[in-house]
């Protein structure tokens, strides 16, 4: 079994693709309560990438600082964990952003939770059209 048919074929894109896929599996397993230790066999079972190929990507992630290697096992490094938290924050962003029907698409209150809270506070005291936050 080689790499999955849907994976990119160029070396650079393939490296980015497998980095994302491997880290996603590791965050997923961690979220399900299975810890964050993986080996090439597990990556093969979960991602369908040949273990011999998978291990080269795992080693690349070690070189890039995402993982720490301990013999045959790989674990998320503090940097890898931080990177995961950033990815989660990005995926939460759409959920945490308010959807004020009265605001225009470029309203600042869509850009951050702080701005949204300020906007909400202002709306409680004033008509939304003249709330003090920036547009």
């Amino acid at each position, binding site marked *: 079994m080689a790499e999955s048919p849907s994976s990119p074929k160029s070396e650079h894109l393939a490296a980015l693709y497998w980095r994302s896929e491997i880290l996603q599996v590791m*965050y997923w397993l961690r*979220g399900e*309560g299975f810890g964050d230790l993986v080996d090439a066999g597990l990556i093969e079972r979960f991602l369908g990438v040949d273990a011999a190929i998978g291990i080269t990507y795992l080693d690349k992630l070690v070189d890039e600082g995402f993982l720490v290697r301990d013999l045959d096992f790989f674990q998320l490094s503090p940097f890898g964990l931080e990177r995961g938290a950033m990815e989660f924050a990005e*995926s*939460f962003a759409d*959920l945490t952003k308010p959807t004020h029907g009265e605001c225009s698409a470029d309203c600042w209150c869509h850009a951050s939770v702080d701005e949204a809270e300020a906007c909400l506070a202002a709306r409680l005291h004033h008509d939304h059209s003249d709330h003090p936050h920036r547009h």
Partner: protein
Amino acid sequence: MISLGEGESHGYELGEYLRRNRLPVDLATVYRKLQSMERRGLIASRWESSASGPARRIYSLTPDGFEKLWNDLEGLRDIQVRLGLMLDAAEESLAGRSRNRTSSRT
């Protein structure tokens, strides 16, 4: 998809649902199926943060997923009805042959 039709869920819980229904699959299969269904737009996922542990990926059916599930359920019901009719006919035939054998002996 049937489990997700009842409400959103996460990987381990979906694996347990299958095991409870006598369809044991390993977690890697659950993961790969979820990834595949998400790429096909049948399910969507989000990360749910937890105060007590790491963030967990939660899956739910998309409108396309609901439609596919509904169509699949209709198809499965149809198969269930046809299988039921086949089994009834087979039972009736076997019962008839059994009666004939018994009466020919007496």
